[in-house]
């Protein structure tokens, strides 16, 4: 089994009001060192072992998991611990 973590974030330059709200709030809590906050989402996939895991997940991302008009994504593949 492979565990693939997909991090989806808004593209550079796309307004992220949620990130801005968090940033303002952090500043008001005294965390003035915060320069920028960008939000995103994490999707975890458990996959059967096969050769082209990365390519398959890339395809999933472009087809469904991320919207290329506004979003970027990064993959992280690791061995899943058998439970």
């Amino acid at each position: 089994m492979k565990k693939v973590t997909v991090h989806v974030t808004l593209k550079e330059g796309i307004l992220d009001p949620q990130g801005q709200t968090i940033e303002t709030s952090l500043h008001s809590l005294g965390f003035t060192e915060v320069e920028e906050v960008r939000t995103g989402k994490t999707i975890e996939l458990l996959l059967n072992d096969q050769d082209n895991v990365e390519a398959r997940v890339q395809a999933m991302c472009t087809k469904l998991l991320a919207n290329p008009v506004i979003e970027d994504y990064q993959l992280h593949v690791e061995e899943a611990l058998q439970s």
Partner: protein
Amino acid sequence: MKFAVVVFPGSNCDRDMYHAVREVLQEEADLVWHESGNLQDYDAILLPGGFSYGDYLRSGAVAAVSDIMDQVKRQAAQGKPVLGVCNGFQVLLESGLLPGAMLPNEKLAFMCHQETLKVANNRTMFTTEYNQGETVQFPIAHGEGNYYCDDKTKAKLEANDQIVFTYQNNPNGSTGAIAGIVNEQGNVLGMMPHPERASEAIIGSADGIRLFQSLVKNWREAHVVNV
């Protein structure tokens, strides 16, 4: 004229659309469940508002990859009118039938109220019953209606006259205050405001019914020879 109202799991303006077409417009309409319909049998396809598949992942993203959208794409390519309202617009964007994407409203809250729209193009098959530049009242009801496209796309939309409706007081932060656009061929319209909720004066506005009347009139002129 026969309308198909496509119903996805989680669609919730399907009956409203159906009511506007059947009872107000007095045309034929069917609610077409996403798994069972043949869209070839219809003259126009309506993608209603709601929260298809719970709007999980991204609004409209899951519906956009469902089987019935392949049919919608084929029918659209043949020039059949396709109207996506609210969630239906989001589905059209996610499926690539229209350019751009939806972001959460600038103020991050769902908003529901009447908005004043400007008819930016009255030469589409959806808007001939309006005057160019006319202002109309349509309700909006969305949490993600902040239309986004890059500068290049926006320039293209403007050059091709694809911007059909704009907001007078941009409520959600949309690029260019865009409320509705058509594809290059002019037969696929996506818009966030709800024409079906503006189809009778008693519920606040009757300005939306002319959108459906435009469709019917243009379809009749093109398809019915002996009227």
